[in-house]
């Protein structure tokens, strides 16, 4: 309503480039209402300040002005009551806009949002996880978001929607939104959550219902559309692994996955262990059990949070497959049996793997160096 009075354009200097939810126009309207109100009072006070300083500045030899009264109850009541009334108006519109944000329409489509240092996971229909790390939602449809955190407090910030809600461990926070136009815009983490807080980014992709349906079909069951190896790579990129583990051998916050599988890894206080399937599964679910030397946090624990309940057995096996595919220490063969039949048996393992999946693989040349 306010924006109608003020004639606020949907695209304005002070606000994010896009305004694309059912509440964003209202927020912008109130923002500009307060903006002009503030501008008025700022100019009023600045004008009086400057005018008084110029007019009543001391002049050598000038006669002092006849002193004015030390106070004036009428004047003081005026500048108490007028701001009070204006503040009540601002409160009222803020409160109304807030109620609109709080009162969720019936039959909203639900998306689960999980924050993990430093990654967002979007889960649809209770089980299907977005496969590109982006939040896909259908346009003109009320969507309710149920937020939970695996570790510390995060905050899901959708500037184009003018919405934000903290993602708190140990409780479910909720909010709802309805996008009014298709297109892609930013998602930020707005509550400080550690080293890579500023990299905890994603995008919200608003799609037509048809596109959205396609998206859901695509993510429904990766076992039908992807090999474990492909799924492993997808999970690596979308579930936060890539934030801390490189696949090129550089040490980031966690050890690199390159050539890790099957290697001897030095464990804090436990000597060396072989990074086999058991070790990797344990490290994903219970990161503190065996921490690789040099990657412990100040108190000797892991810097990683547990993925218990976040990744199922298929997911974990897919990730292990992916790790195998980039390790020279893995001597097995991940080629699907059907394709394997077509390969000459003498072909080197890695060549067949790369031919079959197109995944990044280790060349035989580099493996000789280890």
């Amino acid at each position, binding site marked *: 309503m306010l924006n109608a009075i003020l004639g606020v354009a949907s695209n304005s200097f*002070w606000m994010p480039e896009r305004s694309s939810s059912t509440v964003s126009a209202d927020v912008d309207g109130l923002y500009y209402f307060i903006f002009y109100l503030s501008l008025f009072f700022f100019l009023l006070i600045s004008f009086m*300040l400057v005018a008084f300083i110029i007019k009543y500045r*001391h002049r050598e030899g000038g006669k002092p002005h006849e002193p004015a009264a030390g106070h004036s109850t009428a004047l003081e009541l005026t500048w108490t009551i007028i701001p009070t009334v204006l503040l009540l108006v601002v409160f009222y*519109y803020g409160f109304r806009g807030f109620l609109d944000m709080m009162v969720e329409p019936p039959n909203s489509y639900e998306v689960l949002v999980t924050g993990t240092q430093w990654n967002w996971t979007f889960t649809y229909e209770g089980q299907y996880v977005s496969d590109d790390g982006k939040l896909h939602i259908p346009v003109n449809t009320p969507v309710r978001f149920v937020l939970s955190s695996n570790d510390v407090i995060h905050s899901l910030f959708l*500037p184009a929607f003018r919405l934000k809600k903290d993602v708190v461990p*140990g409780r479910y926070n909720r909010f709802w939104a309805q996008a009014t136009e298709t297109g892609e815009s930013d998602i*930020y983490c707005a*509550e400080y959550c550690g*080293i890579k807080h500023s*990299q905890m980014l994603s995008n919200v992709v608003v799609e037509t219902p048809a596109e959205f349906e396609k998206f859901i079909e695509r993510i429904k069951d990766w076992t039908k559309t992807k090999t474990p190896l492909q799924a492993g790579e997808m999970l690596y990129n979308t579930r936060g692994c890539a934030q801390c583990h490189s696949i090129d051998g550089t040490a980031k916050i966690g050890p690199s996955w390159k050539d890790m599988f099957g290697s001897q890894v030095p464990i804090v206080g436990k000597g060396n262990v072989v990074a086999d399937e058991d070790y990797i599964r344990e490290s994903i679910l219970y990161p503190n059990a065996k921490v690789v030397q040099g990657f412990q946090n100040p108190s000797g624990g892991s810097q990683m949070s547990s993925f218990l309940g976040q990744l199922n057995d298929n997911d974990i096996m897919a990730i292990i497959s992916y790790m195998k595919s980039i390790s020279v220490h893995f001597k097995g063969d991940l080629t699907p049996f059907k394709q394997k039949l077509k390969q000459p048996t003498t072909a080197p393992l890695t060549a067949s793997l790369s031919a079959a999946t197109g995944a990044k693989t280790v060349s035989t040349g580099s493996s000789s160096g280890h």
Partner: protein
Amino acid sequence: MSANIGAIPLTPDRAPEHPEHGDNYLTHGKGIKSWLFTLDHKRIGIMYMVVVLSAFALGGTFAIILRTLLWHPADPTAPNAAASYDFYNHVFTLHGAVMVFMFIIPSIPAILGNFVLPMMLGAKDVAFPRLNLLSFHIYVLGALFFTYVLLSGILHSAFGIHMPGGWGLDTGWTFYTPYSTSSSQGAVAVATLGAFILGFSSILTGVNFIATIHMLRPRGMTWFRLPLFAWALYATSIIQILATPVLAITLLLLTAERVLGVGVFDPALGGDPVLYQHFFWFYSHPAVYIMILPGMGVISELVSTFSRRHIFGYNFIAISSVAIALLGFLVWGHHLFVSGQSPLANSIFSILTFSVAIPSAIKVFNWTATLYKGDIRLKTPFLYAAGFIMLFTIGGLTGLFLGALSVDIHLTDTYFVVAHFHYVMVGSMLFAFIGGLYYWWPKMFGKMYHENTARLAATILFVGFNLTFFPQFIMGSRGMPRRYASYPIKFVTYHHLSTSGAYIMACGLVLILLNLIHSLRKGKPAPANPWGANTLEWRTPSPPPHDNFKETPVAGDPYDLHGWKQIPGQDEWVLDKQEHKTIDGPLHDPAAQPHH
């Protein structure tokens, strides 16, 4: 000029520039021990100044480092990206924690308050001089502790040097759980202990000031003749005493959780991390008023003195200080609008937040109205007062955006909030502090500073400040989240402006420092009253003798400036008693007559 024999010994009309034996508080007692163990409130104030300004220099240096790091977004694919983010996180934590706990909170009360308050009351000292010294020693202890933890973290993060017990802090000054309890581990407990110790210093100063204002007012100083700076310190002290213990309680709960495994804040133990935020802001929001109220008190003094006018609406200003102090306890929940706090609680906190805006608005209007028909002297302290009024207006008005529920949902945790509180904490409080420092500097050291250099520095600071923080309103509104070590490239222009402004501010501050140091060495001697102010601290020589006053003064209306006349061409004002009268009453209460 002792024409008033038998009359009230109001003042030496024109204080002798050199008291008989040449003794003042600076020369009274020699050697380091005479300073470290002094019970003289003036010396304690000066010692606070040295330590608190060192903390300011430290926090300021890190402000420059973090603005430099933000000049351009870091490349996320660089091999050392995580290390550079980690460094940034330690830097912004140190900047915030040092500035809040070691600079802003103690600055005006501990430095200017300690030095000025007893003299403003015509007293020899504060009510409990030993407690005053103890609170200084506690402050130094807490500050050392706190600085060690923070700096060791910087050393570790930047150079890999690990000092014993120090992993530093990368939690922000707010120490939000569970991040603070899971990541920085022991360091958070140690740092909170530092804040806890600093808190005791703050409580003891508060107790002392309240007792001083109650017990040591001179004859004639009724409550409504109390200078407004004293009113502001009184209101501040109430908050210090009531709010600071909550910080101690929070620390004890954090410790109980870590040591005994009692789930309070940690969800893994069944605790609630949002509860921590309630505890934290129950202290820290009132603490915001600990920071700004004394500044408002300083401004009231400056505006009246330099406009040569009785302060307009004295009662409204005095009462609004107390109103702000009390209402300030009821608004902490506005920091939690998106935390999952109930909508009902959000709505109540929103309307209470707007209620605090009213007494603040009243003060701004009253200060402005004081200038009307004045005879305004554009001395440096006045420039700071005028700067304060403009910047505090912006700081206060932008608070309306954040108090309005629906708009706050968008703006919270963005640079808009950063800009808003810097306009209040730096634009207002720092300006008030520097203005007050210039104002009382001649009284403190008996030396005048160089006026035009000081004016130039004030202008540089004002320009630099606005260039630093105004662009942050824009980028925050446009979605730039706070506490980001790196950022989307679309915000780079605003960061360029902001960083440039920070460098300009730094130049202004260095110029201020150089000017003050220069004044100590080469400044003109200051007269007893270089501004023609009527509060009692100006009725004694500059610098004051050890016992402040030769004769206990009697107070009238502190803002009755009639009769104070400037000696032409000099920085000296003398009182013509015939003209000195309060505007609306006799000079002295009948009760104020001495009994001899």
